[in-house]
């Protein structure tokens, strides 16, 4: 595929090596934004849609800049307009209804929707988010978007009777949305498929979904795929055949116990490596993250390595999220310098 990575190297990048730093997507919302939401949802409050839009734009601005101040090469706005990765899209797709929250783990829930009739594209999903963020950002903007397999798998299916059929229908809608984003200028799209690698053989469904998603997209659009908390042996080496530029994966939470799934020298796409655990409030030290980054070099050479947190960081306290990302960027720049000097072997083995 076209080299879609080098364009994201900042003009003032300090090292010869360039390990692209980015985030997976979500970020803790400022406390005041949550209070604003409560006011918006309170019928007795005078807080209207105009005030809400101002608040959410302000939050988007603040978090985008927080990412930039942390030194990330590619940023997003922390998904300030989104409450949850399935709900947000299901609210915008005809055919879904909501019946209340369901548990994911511990006290973390989401409003798992039910598909009760044929799904169809109604209104743009992310164009407003992308256009606003790219307008206020000085760094390039990535657009994370929940993938069709996850949208299907994390819904109750009352209508189709086949998760596969539902996923393909949704893939066509995702293609429509991404085409719109690309027309608006987006060049880095990340498909989030946390449902991948959770059932045997789901890689084939996701492969077909991705083919539908990238149909007719320009070659210079960087397509990433984010996967987390699965059994990766189920999807490797099959992902090597996916039409993607980058495969981003959670590995820090399990202390890299699945690293050997991907080692062996045949890893095809760029690797987006999770180097901080998003489910612990301990901020990993720069030295620890440097060691984590070096695990990535066991899979790919530096020119194919992207550095990110394991997953979205929205469940962390905001200062912890910021601390992790700041340390992640520092560690990455240190590893680049060590690669430049030869202190770290860059052979990728």
């Amino acid at each position: 595929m076209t080299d879609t990575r080098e364009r994201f190297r900042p003009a003032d990048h300090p090292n010869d090596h360039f390990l692209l730093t980015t985030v997976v997507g979500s970020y803790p919302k400022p406390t005041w934004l949550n209070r604003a939401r409560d006011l918006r949802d309170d019928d007795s409050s005078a807080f209207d849609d105009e005030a809400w839009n101002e608040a959410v734009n302000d939050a988007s601005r603040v978090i985008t800049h927080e990412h930039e101040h942390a030194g990330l090469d590619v940023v997003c706005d922390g998904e300030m307009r989104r409450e949850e990765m399935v709900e947000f899209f299901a609210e915008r797709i005809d055919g879904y209804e909501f019946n209340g929250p369901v548990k994911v783990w511990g006290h973390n829930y989401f409003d798992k929707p039910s598909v009760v009739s044929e799904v169809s594209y109604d209104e743009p999903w992310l164009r407003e988010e992308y256009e606003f963020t790219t307008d206020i950002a000085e760094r390039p903007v990535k657009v994370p978007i929940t993938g069709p397999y996850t949208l299907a798998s994390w819904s109750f299916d009352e209508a189709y009777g086949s998760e596969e059929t539902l996923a393909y229908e949704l893939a066509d809608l995702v293609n429509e949305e991404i085409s719109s984003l690309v027309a608006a200028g987006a060049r880095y799209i990340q498909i989030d498929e946390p449902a991948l690698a959770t059932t045997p053989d789901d890689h084939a469904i996701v492969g077909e979904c991705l083919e539908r998603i990238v149909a007719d997209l320009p070659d210079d659009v960087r397509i990433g795929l984010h996967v987390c908390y699965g059994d990766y042996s189920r999807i490797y080496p099959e992902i090597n055949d996916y039409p993607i530029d980058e495969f981003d994966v959670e590995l820090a939470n399990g202390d890299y116990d699945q690293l050997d799934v991907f080692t062996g020298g045949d890893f095809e796409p760029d690797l987006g490596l999770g180097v901080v655990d998003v489910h612990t409030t301990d901020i990993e030290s720069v030295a620890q993250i440097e060691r984590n980054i070096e695990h990535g070099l066991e899979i790919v050479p530096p020119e194919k390595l992207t550095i990110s947190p394991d997953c979205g960081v929205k469940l962390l306290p905001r200062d912890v999220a910021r601390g992790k990302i700041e340390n992640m960027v520092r560690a990455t720049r240190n590893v680049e310098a060590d690669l430049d000097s030869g202190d770290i072997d860059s052979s990728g083995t």
Partner: protein
Amino acid sequence: MDRLATTIGLFPLPDGQRERLAELKGHQKSDLIDGDEARATRDAYAATRRHYIDRQREAGLDRLVEGQGRWDDLLAHPLCVHENVRTGGIVRYYDNNNFYREPVVTGELTASGDVPSELAAAAEHCDDLGAVLPGPYSLAGLARDEHYGSSAAFLDGVADFLAGEVTAFPDGVETLTLLEPGFATEPPDAAAYERIGDAIDTVAAATDADVLVHTYWGTPGDDLYRRLLDTDADGLGYDLVTDPEAATTLAAEYGAPPRVLLGVVDGQNTLIESQETINERADRFAERAATDVDAAYLTPNTGLFHLPVSKFEAKLDALAAATGGAQ
């Protein structure tokens, strides 16, 4: 065939208590249940337990369960609160969008009394209680062993642990359902069948209650099924939602115990089954079984925490209605 409406537990937290407990405990790995909760948290779970009992009674279920609202780590809970177990990273719960803290067993699994104390609290409000535990094979499969040294010794250790818990159950427990989804999701090697059967016998010997062994998300293999028929369990459970043909075929080929648990309601879909659908699924099973089935517990195929509260309650009502309950 007598039909009794019940569930296999693992209920969703009720509206109100869900938010209250999240506020009391927090959202991180370290905030989850460790067996030593603060007073306010204990009170919230006690209220949850009473609510579950009341709601099951209102629906008209024939056998009530404690509901396991406190089981943050789902079926791994009995280990995650044990003093000789530490909890590791969060890991995926079977093939679902659910996660639990992986229990790492670092010492002997002595009886902990955690589940008996929950059941004793429920028994204060209900004198005809169904207990639900993970079966020894599935519980061992959810954990990591750093103490027993072999999968065989670990399975035995987990079975002894469960037996110790069951011994301490209160008098009001009439049935014990051992959940063994692992038989379908991580099928054991044939060499382990005998030991798995013995492990179930170890647990069954610890109680006078009727013991049912329920496999879901599929079926046990043929030979394992035959071994299960030979255990001291009083009945077996069949998932008639995931793969009804496979489950029914086992009963047609090898027979079924006189008492069965039939998963006739989808615990993971908001679509609510009609009375007709529920009874047709049970009838079809009984007709095809090679041996007579005297009594069937009609239940969801899985725990019900997968559903939003409104649909969870609708499933309780549907089960009770199918057997002529209050609704």
